[in-house]
């Protein structure tokens, strides 16, 4: 694992910016994500995303978060209250993200710690979901994103967290788009066999939006491209 001190910091308030940006992105892309699941799956992923965001709003209202860990906890609890396969898997994924950083969870993680947390999340998703890379699932965009993030951080000690996250985002979007070339072997889409070819995996797309939102939360823009989803 990467040493904490040698890694660029994510900005103060990153938790809030990341989660609120992701919230915007999920709400904005929910219809398109639902369509993807309808074309090669059982069509409920859009509803699941929307339900998660409804829960998130309720959590933020009921118990306003004050730290990175609390923001991410509000997010992971929101997803755990959702059905389908994506609910528990995204829930456990974000739970690992919430653990990023110091033990007490008071400060914002470094970029490297965030990368480690993404990797822990991927391992958890694979432990529960039993998917391999290439099975046309959410980890198909996550795995190359983590690799790109780490590569950027390792390649140049001067690389900023935002620059590294841009690399990760590009890798995630490219990989998500490329899932259209594959056949689903996990989730409901696996029941339709080769008919899932030609359709982007909605979970992989959603995961790319997660990486993009981390980047947009870090650079303060709050702007995530949704145009490629569909």
């Amino acid at each position: 694992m990467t040493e904490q001190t040698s890694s660029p910091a994510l900005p103060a308030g990153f938790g809030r910016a990341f989660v609120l940006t992701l919230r915007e992105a999920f709400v904005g892309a929910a219809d398109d994500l639902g369509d993807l699941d309808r074309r090669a799956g059982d069509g409920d992923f859009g509803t699941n995303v929307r339900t998660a965001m409804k829960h998130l709003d309720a959590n933020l209202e009921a118990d306003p978060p004050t730290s990175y860990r609390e923001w991410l906890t509000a997010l992971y609890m929101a997803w755990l209250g959702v059905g389908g396969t994506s609910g528990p898997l995204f829930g456990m994924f974000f739970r690992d993200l919430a653990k990023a950083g110091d033990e007490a969870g008071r400060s914002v993680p470094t970029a490297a710690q965030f990368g480690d947390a993404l990797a822990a999340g991927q391992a958890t998703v694979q432990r529960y979901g039993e998917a391999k890379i290439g099975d046309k699932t959410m980890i198909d965009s996550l795995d190359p994103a983590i690799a790109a993030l780490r590569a950027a951080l390792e390649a140049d000690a001067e690389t900023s967290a935002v620059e590294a996250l841009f690399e990760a985002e590009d890798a995630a979007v490219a990989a998500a788009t490329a899932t259209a070339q594959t056949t689903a072997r996990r989730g409901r889409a696996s029941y339709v066999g080769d008919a899932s070819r030609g359709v982007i995996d909605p979970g992989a797309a959603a995961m790319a939006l997660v990486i993009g939102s981390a980047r947009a939360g870090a650079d303060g823009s709050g702007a995530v491209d949704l145009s490629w989803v569909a």
Partner: protein
Amino acid sequence: MRRSIVNDPEDLVPEALEGLVLSHPRLLELEAEHRFITRKEPARDKVGLVSGGGSGHEPLHAGFVGTGMLDVAVAGAVFASPTALQVLAATKAADAGRGVVQIVKNYTGDVLNFRIAGEISGDDAIDTEIVLVDDDIATDSGEDGPGRRGTAATVIVEKVCGAAAEEGAGLADVAAIGRRVATSARTMSLALAAGTHPGDDRPQFDLGDDEIELGVGIHGERAAKRASFTDANGLTDLLLEPLLSELDLSRGDEVLAIVNGLGSTYPLELQLVARALHHRLGDAGIEIGRSLVGPYVTSLDMHGVSITLMPLDDELRRLWDAPVRTPALTW
């Protein structure tokens, strides 16, 4: 066309849970937000027992909350797992300081959400053990795949674990006896007609006049096999034959039997199957030491029946006979 007594189908589960608790005000309490039902008087100083799953299988699970059986039952939508968050809240509610056994029917969604809830409840220093129920031999397809489904043996696991917990057994022991039941109990089911989702007007599948669905599940999924319709004795044989070849029983053995109605099977029909089962097993020198006959694990109004058999020994008989006081099972 099958119509349902229902308001907005969206509200079915919360409304039905409310109705159940209103009907058992001295026994049950509802946690509406996470849709689980607890004992009115929570048990103290014992291992907690939580179960749950999709709705549409009533009286399972909420009908088995009470002294000597479950502490908490959590309900998903019809045929859909409760969420991990629901299971987490239910698991916490079941804890009385000595850990919680989660009884889970083997369906991908249920297993996922219960496992996750178990893992997360560790954050609150709650020890959990999962007992997986996978008794349905119709889905015994070898190593690969999700494995056998969990059906009516769940009632035995819940009863036996409940009795062990009430006796004061520790977490590992309660889980162990539950697993012993799950390992030894097997079920086979058939349907003459599928159930109908509340709000739908067609059953989940149609059958020809002279065929039945052999090895049917409790979620309206069709079975791998069809068989010819025949009389009560013949239908009993269709269920019993694969059970006997699976269970390796010998003359002199004693079993617990559940003749389970899948929804709209009426008592006269179940009594005929029970009778045939007694005669057939009796001919084989196998005694039905204990039995249940009735609708215990249903699939909406499916017309069908399942038979569950489990070899009995002194310990299991004692735990089965221990007092129980729930809406659907009391002695």
